[in-house]
């Protein structure tokens, strides 16, 4: 059994140590907000926070999750009140929405490290997240808005 803290609650799953966190979350814990996009840490759709760091759940083996704290989109904030979620709403960022869990988790981790990121920092920190719908211009704008909202809270 693997034990870890998921969105503030201790959970245990009967997963092999080599199973990536993504599949434990989705198939065993029913947490489908974290998405599969590539399975090779190339697209960022599966981004979650591991002890506060943005990681790709599709390549993170459960053996490295044991005893750690995991936050997924479902646990980012109560009532979608995180500055990133508010800013995403304000800019009508999503199109299909599939990659947006990962985008928001990456953005939240970015803002935790860089409260006022410039364009280069955003490019650098967000280039691991692909959006096929092409919401990048709005993601950039929303991250700047979230930075302002974050500053106020």
């Amino acid at each position: 059994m693997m034990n870890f803290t998921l969105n503030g609650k201790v959970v245990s799953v009967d997963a092999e140590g080599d199973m990536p966190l993504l599949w434990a979350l989705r198939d065993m814990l029913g947490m489908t907000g974290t998405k599969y996009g590539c399975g090779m840490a190339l697209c960022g759709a599966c981004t979650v926070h591991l002890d506060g760091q943005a990681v790709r759940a599709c390549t993170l083996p459960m053996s490295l999750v044991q005893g750690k704290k995991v936050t997924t989109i479902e646990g980012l904030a109560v009532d979608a009140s995180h500055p990133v979620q508010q800013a995403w709403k304000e800019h009508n960022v999503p199109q299909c929405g599939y990659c947006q869990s990962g985008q928001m988790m990456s953005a939240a981790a970015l803002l935790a490290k860089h409260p006022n990121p410039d364009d280069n920092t955003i490019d650098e920190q967000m280039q691991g997240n692909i959006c096929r719908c092409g919401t990048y211009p709005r993601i950039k704008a929303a991250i700047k808005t979230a930075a302002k909202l974050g500053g106020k809270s």
Partner: protein
Amino acid sequence: MSQIANVSRRQFLKITGMGATGLVLGGLLPGFRPAWAKAGDAVSELNLFVSIGSDDLVHIICHRSEMGQGIRTGLPQVVADELMADWQKVQVVQGLANAEYGSQNTDGSRSVRRFYQIMREMGASARAMLEQAAANQWQVPLEEVQARDHQVWHQKSGRSLRFGELAEAAAGLTPPAKDQLKLKSPDDFNYIGKDVPIVDMPAILSGQTVFGQDVQLPDMLYASIERTPVVGANVKSVDNSAALKVKGVVDTFVMPEQSEPVLFKPLPGVAVLATNSWAAMQGRKQLRIEWTDSTHSQHDSDAYLDVLKGRVKQQGKVIRSIGDAYAGMMNAVDTFEAGYSVPYLIHAPMEPPAATAVFKDGTCEIWACTQTPQSTQQNVAGALGIEPDKVKVNVTLLGGGFGRKSKPDFSVEAAILAKQTGKPVKVSWSREDEIRHGYYHAAAAMHFAAGMDDTGRVVSWLQRTAFPSISWTFNGTSDEPSGSELDLGFGDLPFALDNLSCEVQKAEAHLRIGWVRSVSNIQHGFAIGSFVDELAHKLDRRPRELWLELLGSDRLVDPEPEGFKYGNYGESKAVFPIDTARIKGVLNLVADKAGVDKPTAKNEAWGLSVHRSFVSYVAVATKVRVDGNKVQVLEMHSAIDAGTVVNPDRVRSQMEGAMIFGLSLAMMGEISVKDGAVVQSNFHDYPLLRINQSPQIHSYIVESSQAPGGVGEPGVPPVAASLCNAIFRAGGKRIRDLPISKHMQV
């Protein structure tokens, strides 16, 4: 013409799976025959529904698939506006597959253009019936009552009744005749034309959305399928012993053999069924499969494209002509010619295809991220040997579609496995599956020539195209582009020319060929847009000036008298003509807004292109910087004339997305094939544009009261040409063979 009719609650329940109270209205729609319908099939007509409950809630059925274009918001917006409903009390219900809706194929950029009018009529009918019910109850003349803010008001007495209080009585009334129907004046629209936020926003923000990949049922098995690497090959033998030893693997199953035509049949292969996705994937790696030979096992995309390039240098089958293009070339003082090519491409939606199926007591229920629920229903029924009405298809949200999810092969896979195992089965495609086993955008070669007189005026124009046809997917025999593909930016060339010859050349198919966002407009928009720019350079003219000259006077172009039977995206030529004034309108708008005629910094330049597709008009200006062999896209401006626009914010988002989709394919998009098998497999070798490559994007919408045109696809075709034109003018190479990454650093 459409009609509104009262619909029984039993019928509503049957079609929507939803109980209804109060007023239920349906609209009869003109039928539409899908491309794969058999000749002789009756064209179906169907109903759309609005219901108003005694609880005041308005339910509006969205029978089209949501894949990011915002249709679950747009169509209900139209109904709610005419209904005078309060948007906060509107709930959108996703329609199940049902032929009574008519076509549910969410493709061809047609949801708003096909359903705008009927949705207005639906809302207006419901409003009229609620008003009549109120007038009856108050015993006052109908003229004295008025619907507003989800209530009906009697101004004189100050009385009002909520929609919910009137719904039951309204349901007993006869809907107004079409000629009695009063539609709102556009000046009074309160939702149409407004930036209403998408209805799925709260669920997306909190990770609560259900896409095809997210469906979970009790006791469900997860399937991962190893499919034939070469189209036409079947499983010769399989050793599953190692696969079965993987913890969590329950069973393996050899998928049915297939022959051509490939249609929407699942590819042959071996499925591994397990208690979770990871186990299924691990088990699949342990399969040892031998495949039979295929006639396509020699296919090599580079060699194939070279053959097509050779063919388009030769005279082909003429599909449209004006004057005598060959004589025109002979008599020309100067001529110029160039060839262009676009490789195979794949959709790569962020969500790869996924479907879940349950088979029980001779009936099948499917949950799938499908653009075509009815085709899913028919193909599943066919594969299982049951009637279509024994197949219930639930449409989940789509994590992108772009045409991939118009093909229901993945739902058929899930249905076959559910029947085989007697358990719920989810088939999830991996990224590798999606890239290697898709329905590909056809590789294409084109050749262009122009002849000029002594004043530099273009007097003769010759264009040829060759690419494997989507028709082959359906009949297994087509070996040249079909009319419906030549409609897409080739036979509809809108230039004013004395001499023109549009020709096609042969191209056999070796892969499953399918629709990708904007379809053949991709290659034709690239080639025509590039050739005009090359001509402008040769003639030392400003590109905009040459475009305007070639487009000629303001007029409506009809290719029909010139021998080309033009389908016009299935639309009336009277309502949606090829209007050169509108082409010129978007071109001038974008050129002026972007400032393409102003001087640019060293190594920087603008590129321009314009294209009509899906009965809408889009021009794009792209600014790049070229440093040595490196290209950086700095800025893009687009202008769209799509007639009446329902949700401007979603139109802008589609245009932003189309710019990025176009950049991805132009800069890096290439599927190559060796020994019949696709070489690429994931985002490392089929890269998509990332945020650090994404330019500033500005979108302009032409204000118009014309009928609504397409929006999802028309933004894509001008992008590649505008980009390549900019690169050349900034001192880079002239790119005639996409992608740019083969020639320059992107």
